[in-house]
């Protein structure tokens, strides 16, 4: 098919299920590359609290290899920091490290019941920085690409605030306590999402990466996490995407039930089988290994993986986690090129059945 749309039209068309000229190549998660950092001549630790650098860096993947979205922030600590965690951005470490939580907001489980989300938490930490970066992206690139942002899912966010082992134990020994915390965090996630949309995000991804079946049982997903995710989906305007990395074969149908426009999975998922389990109106994104393939693979392997993902039934070629910074530019070029060249032809939605 002739290419008739620009990146923004294609991504947003796809996400709102309007006719598009082929599947898009984008994601709702981080897309920093070392090539992008070199282009801006800045270090990774310097971008996390700087709206201008954050926006500029997010846009480099579009400029360098035609990735069809720009996404901020880059780390998973933004909401947790605004809710009281201390973070480490590794300012003085030579290797590239992602920010992490240095001190939990709720170090003792005894304090869990009393935890409250501060009334002004949207103004705390780096939430204003992310919103400013979204505004800049929308102003600078809003005619060409799709602007995305993400939040952690309530359970994964709880794991940032509370010692994760304790959270796991309490999920079995004191379910009510965990449910109460998740309830508060669900409201917080929704508030952050709405504020990001207002600031200019075109679409939002909810990353509930602590909920894969490598860690939690499908029954825990269904009883503890699914109700929160349903509420998040119901309270945010479309388009919204639910991402879970790790093993998801046994929970894809439950993920789809949450009510997001798309679900995103990683290569541990058997997309062909998932496509049968997930209703056709729900899009499936992903299935491109962000590390093994994009960092260590060759352009030929990338092309092959893109074609296989499309044949298996994805609706967008979407690296299934943050693009790993050292990903080779020639691999990213190959990913975008293969999507453009073969996408429309291989896409299952174009095969009238």
């Amino acid at each position, binding site marked *: 098919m002739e290419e008739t749309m620009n990146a923004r039209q294609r991504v947003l068309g796809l996400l709102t299920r309007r006719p598009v000229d082929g599947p898009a190549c984008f994601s709702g998660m981080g897309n920093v590359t070392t090539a992008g950092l070199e282009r801006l001549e800045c270090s990774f630790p310097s971008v996390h609290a700087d709206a201008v650098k954050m926006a500029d860096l997010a846009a480099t993947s579009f400029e360098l290899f035609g990735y069809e979205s720009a996404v901020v922030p880059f780390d998973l600590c933004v909401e947790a920091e605004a809710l009281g965690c201390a973070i*480490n951005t*590794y300012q003085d*470490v030579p*290797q*590239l*490290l*992602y920010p*992490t*939580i*240095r001190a939990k907001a709720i170090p003792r489980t005894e304090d869990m019941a009393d935890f409250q989300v501060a009334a002004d938490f949207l103004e705390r930490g780096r939430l204003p920085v992310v919103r400013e970066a979204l505004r800049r992206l929308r102003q600078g690139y809003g005619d060409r690409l799709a602007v995305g942002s993400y939040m952690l899912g309530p359970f994964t966010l709880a794991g940032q605030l509370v010692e*994760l*082992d304790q959270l*796991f*134990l309490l*999920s*079995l*020994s004191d379910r009510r306590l965990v449910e109460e915390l998740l309830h508060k965090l669900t409201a917080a996630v929704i508030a952050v999402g709405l504020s990001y949309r207002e600031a200019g995000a075109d679409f939002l991804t909810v990353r509930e990466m602590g909920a894969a*079946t490598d*860690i*939690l*049982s499908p029954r*825990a997903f269904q009883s503890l996490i699914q109700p929160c995710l349903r509420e998040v989906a119901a309270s945010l305007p479309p388009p919204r995407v639910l991402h879970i990395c790790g093993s998801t074969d046994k929970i894809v149908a439950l993920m789809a039930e949450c009510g997001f426009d798309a679900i995103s999975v990683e290569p541990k998922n058997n997309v062909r089988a998932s496509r049968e389990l997930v209703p056709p109106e729900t899009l499936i994104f992903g299935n491109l290994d962000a*590390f093994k393939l994009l*960092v260590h693979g060759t352009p030929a392997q990338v092309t092959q993986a893109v074609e296989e993902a499309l044949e298996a039934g994805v609706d967008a070629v979407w690296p299934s986690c943050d693009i*790993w*910074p*050292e990903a080779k530019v020639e691999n990213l070029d190959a990913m975008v090129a293969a999507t453009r060249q073969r996408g429309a032809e291989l896409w299952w939605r174009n095969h009238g059945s």
Partner: protein
Amino acid sequence: MPSMDEYCVQLKQAVVDYNRDQAVAIAQTIVDQGLDAQKAVFDGLIAGMQVVGKYYEDQYYFVPEMLMCAQALYSALDILKPHMPQTDLGLKGQVVMGVVQGDVHDIGKNIVKLMFEVAGFEVKDLGRDVPLDDFVREQLSSDADMVCLSAMMTTTMTGMREVIRKIKEKNPKCRIMIGGAPVTEELASKWGADGYAPDANNALREAIAMVSSLHEMYQQAQARD
């Protein structure tokens, strides 16, 4: 009154069912009646944890269930331990363990630690996001038999290489095992680690083999002196 064998079966079941209260009550009864605490630990608690490990491998139990079982086990162990002769714990060796700097993924490490402790290793857990030099310092000060490094990310994984080099420089006989999703057997041998395992069960097997060979070496050396 139930026999010792029956108590062991009940204790094992309490661990599998992650019923801490039950595990504690039975352990207390065993102690009160002056029964064999060592047998209770091995045929009750550890036997239970072996079932749990199998359930986890089969994806019948998941991480939270496994941690709950461990909690039941530790609570009963606290009661039984003082009633066992020290040597009967069958201490296999001392291990320093942690997740390398920049990496907070510690779910896998905690499972490996659990298996090691249950099998009788003394584990010094340095936690997650551990500055590389801390491993070296801790190994030197404790003279642990083995250091276990975990990493879940490719960027942080490279820190292991440095730790291995530094420890081997100062103490060549210390055994080092590495693991975590991105780590491979090839990388482990390239970086000079003595062992690698893809999961917690294999890690334990490997550790037992490594430490016994180390102890044999000591004994041979002592015999020569």
